[in-house]
């Protein structure tokens, strides 16, 4: 096995809930939202890793921790063997951010409406002191625009964000990240605001850049159907924990955690003959809040297969097949039938 590009161990982020004056007076115990609760993962060079889960499961928090936009509560992360949780000074952080960039979900608000595309793309160059002359910078900007297929680049330089379409905006966001030649990009729901046809175009482009620019993505999404095409590894997140992870094909073909199974049943498919009846969605209720995580297995209150042990003991990751683990006491023993009733 090659060395991972990015490694996280016991990564944890608890947000403290602000208490009022009187609550403090009564010495009420402090409460925490356990957004990310001790997760481990490895990301290999040019092998994209995706995290899927419902809203509120903590997937965006992981992305922010990886970018060091948030300070972790516990745990360690290594990028190319260097422990990034030990980053102290501004200079170190700057050097790290040259290697690691982020793209946000909403291209409509990620770009400053008062700046032209040129200014937007020049900002990272400014910050990192790249390019000596204006001409040099212009060349770099044009190159970045060409990389994301915004051609001819001269045409886009002077435009404001409102003058380009949604897909083009997201490509400008991508160019802004790519202009620093990063090794690693955190993509937080990069295509969920875009139309289906444009979504495919942006994902294709992002995939092409893996080989062209030697970049690796950490792909955060709620849309499990895009993961198979775009990524190599997948982690399924539930309430702050990665409950199942492995190669994307293995996890989707042989889901072993009841939560992953439920997600796969629920995902809509464009095949009217299969999906016309009512689906047997095996789980009920909605994701509980991160303040009081259920005892034992955090999924047990919603799990259709829960038994006594599930509420008492937290399951260890169980290996289902090579590189594929599920945190469930019964992983590998639960039959899974994707087919819809009626």
């Amino acid at each position, binding site marked *: 096995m090659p060395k991972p590009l990015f490694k996280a161990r016991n990564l944890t982020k608890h947000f403290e809930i602000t208490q009022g004056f009187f609550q403090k007076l009564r010495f009420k115990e402090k409460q925490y939202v356990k957004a990310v609760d001790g997760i481990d993962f490895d990301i290999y060079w040019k092998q994209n890793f995706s995290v899927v889960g419902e809203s509120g499961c903590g997937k965006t928090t992981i992305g922010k921790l990886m970018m060091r936009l948030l300070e972790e509560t516990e745990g360690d992360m290594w990028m190319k063997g260097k422990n990034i949780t030990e980053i102290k000074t501004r200079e170190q952080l700057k050097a790290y951010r040259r290697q690691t960039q982020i793209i946000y979900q909403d291209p409509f608000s990620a770009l400053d409406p008062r700046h032209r595309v040129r200014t937007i793309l020049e900002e990272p160059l400014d910050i990192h002191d790249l390019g000596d002359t204006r001409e040099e910078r212009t060349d770099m900007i044009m190159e970045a625009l060409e990389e994301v297929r915004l051609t001819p680049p001269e045409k886009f330089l002077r435009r404001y964000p*409102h003058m380009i379409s949604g897909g083009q905006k997201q490509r400008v966001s991508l160019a802004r990240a790519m202009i620093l030649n990063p090794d690693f990009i955190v993509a937080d729901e990069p295509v969920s605001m875009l139309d289906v*046809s444009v979504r495919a175009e942006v994902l294709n482009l992002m995939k092409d850049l893996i080989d062209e620019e030697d970049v690796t993505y950490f792909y955060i999404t709620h849309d499990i159907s895009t993961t198979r095409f775009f990524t190599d590894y997948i982690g399924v997140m539930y309430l702050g924990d990665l409950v199942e992870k492995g190669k994307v094909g293995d996890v989707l073909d042989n889901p072993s955690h009841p939560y992953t199974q439920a*997600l796969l049943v629920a995902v809509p498919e464009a095949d009217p003959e299969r999906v016309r009846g009512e689906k047997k969605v095996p*789980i009920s209720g*909605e994701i509980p809040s991160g303040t009081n995580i259920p005892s034992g297995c955090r999924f047990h209150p919603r799990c259709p297969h829960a038994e006594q042990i599930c509420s008492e003991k937290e399951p260890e990751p169980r290996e289902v097949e090579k590189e594929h683990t599920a945190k469930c006491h019964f992983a590998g023993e639960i039959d899974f039938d994707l087919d819809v009733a009626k």
Partner: protein
Amino acid sequence: MDSDTVLKVDELSTHYLTSDGEVFALDDASFELKRGGSIGIAGESGCGKSTLAFSLLNQVQPPGEIMSGSINLDGIEVTNLSEKEARRKIRWKKVSMVFQGAMEIMTPVYSVGHQMKEPLKYHKDITGEEARKICEKYLELVNLEPGIFDRYPHELSGGQKQRVIIATALLLEPDIVILDEPTTALDVVVEARIMNDLKRLRRELDISMIFITHDLSILAEVSDELAIMYAGWIVEFGDANKIYKDPKHPYTEKLMAAIPDIRTDIDRLEYIPGVPPNLVNPPSGCRFHPRCHKAMEVCREMEPKTHNVEGVKVKCHLYSEDESIAESREATYETAYEDEMAAEAYEGEKGTEEVEDGLEEAEVMEE
């Protein structure tokens, strides 16, 4: 109109008369909805699908206006109704609508019940107690506790709010419910359960539904018939199973191919190059020709007629029986499909500023 048909739309056109010119948001839309049937309307943002929904309620906001055509709703000609009549006769009672982003449309300062009762009180002469009973009955129908009646919107989750909105839309037992992106903001598990509820309600209450969404995979679950819209036109309309299995219009074909498949490994996703056109100044001939992979010479010059292909209505020259059109088939010109650079050039010719202004407008309209 026979008694099986609850809605018949004929050559409906709705335009927006903006200061930049007339926006051809919806042109020549014709379709029928059977009693108890369902239609799914799909297309990219800005294609006019929400405009169509608002037209059906005769609720197009100025500067929008229904220019021509007719909407026959169970014997009532909707386009002739005044605002007051429309409110009294059709809205909620005959047709109700679940809006996009329904989760934000409830006022936080009133209880759920207070807001649910409103249409009942307007249309029926009943006491508060009776209204409460009806509301509770419908809340149970959408799998909610009747106790939700006394709760406030902020106490509910997104899925619960969406269910309340659906229950409210059903209160006056309308013939048709229009659902505009009903599950877009919800998580897949919640979405699947709400879709289950909708399927069950349709069966139990025998109502017709019109689903509007950009997500073709959701529509596969609920629509008997499918209408694919592009740039203000219904380009393909017919039996959903047929269209999913064998799309006829080149646009539908590409749209279907762009959906990623969760079961098989694929290397590349299909997509449609270029951007949807500016509807102030739509492309000549077929509005899809600049992005079409099967474009012919004639597509640039002549608006296609709607042809009946194996029971599916397709607005495309490919299916024309006219010989002069058949002859033109060999001639080609550069389209966005052949070369994306050509698409850019095409856009350039038309004056980029113009194209983009229109785009924006289309987006604004969608909202």
